[in-house]
């Protein structure tokens, strides 16, 4: 049972960690691209 509980906790944490990393990546990408777009607009 402890092994199953370990997988349960690791699994849920893994999924949320993956999504959190993805969220941060999206925020970084959108921040960088909006800066690039605005600097291109200024030119």
């Amino acid at each position, binding site marked *: *049972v402890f*092994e*199953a*509980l370990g*997988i*349960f906790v*690791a*699994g*849920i944490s*893994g*999924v*949320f*960690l*993956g*999504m*959190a*990393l*993805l*969220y941060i*990546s*999206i*925020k970084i*990408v*959108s921040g960088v*691209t*909006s800066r*690039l*777009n605005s600097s291109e607009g200024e030119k």
Partner: protein
Amino acid sequence: MILIEETLAMFKTSGFFFVTPGMIVMWAIGFTLIYLAIARDYEPLLLLPIGFGIVLANLPLADLMKPNEGLLWRFYHYGIQWEIIPPLIFLGLGALTDFGPMLARPVLIFLGAGAQAGVYITFFVAYAIGFDLKEAATIGIIGGADGPTTIFLATKLAPHMLGSCAVAAYSYMALVPIIQPPIMKLLTTKEERVIRMKKLRKVSRLEKVLFPMVSALVIILLVPAAAPLMAMFMIGNLFREAKVVERLNHAAQNELLNIVTIFLGLPIGATMNAETFLQPKVIFIFFLGLFAFMISTATGVLLAKLMNLFAKEKINPLLGAAGVSAVPMAARVVHKVGAEADKKNYLLMYAMGPNVAGVIGTVIAAGVFLTILR
């Protein structure tokens, strides 16, 4: 007299002489799936070839699933056991997927994670009632509502359960409009269902091009075991968003996806022979699969409600139900239930965000299972 004896001898070498009651039951199951596919339009692309595969695999002496000889065994061995077909399906799905709504409102991706809680809760329940860890993981992943991922995981962890888990996953995916709405309504109030979402921002082409590369890097680094599915999913999406390889994009979305779908359905159906399928355990698999699906829907909705306790801009909690990855059916159901409460509330585009995030979430969930259990 000789003629009669020879006719009898020939009859004894024909398949008719070796038909068992179990085979007849399997034919009935196969024909039922074919009926549901044709007459009721339940996931016909998969249930039709699976149903026919079941019938073919249960024809005596045909040996279509005989190792190293049978035609369907070759499809199964080289296509599924060799991990070729599920990743190719993901290539096509990637080419079909628009991540725009998810990129426009990235906080909604957490709803795609919330729905995966159902996968792990079902895993724990299945283990508690007597399945071993690998079998329990394979049953749990049905809750992700993602057929190719279920097949991918079952092939690696519990190949003897491949057929039943695949049929359960695709059947419940077809039943999303029936399974999800009562749970969604039960867990939300009318006031919550009428919450309108803020207009989505415009996502630039550069963001859409960068996303598949960045997400492939992040997810594969985090869960390397998910690499085959994630890599193909994201290269397919890059074909779509790059806009410079339209031929590849078109082929991945159409010809390739159609061809591999044929070679996926037939051998999966063919793994379901009377000896392995007609067991009490299979009934539990179907019940637990349904349970997984229901819990995934509920946890998605509940997470959205939890997020609303902290969020400045409220999220319509119905969107949580789209976190199961049945794309785009779950998103459509969210829109429909939302529209029942407020006709002018268009939730479809917003629901597509957690919906496609759910696909990634299920792949990560499968990757975690593989990392620990393989």
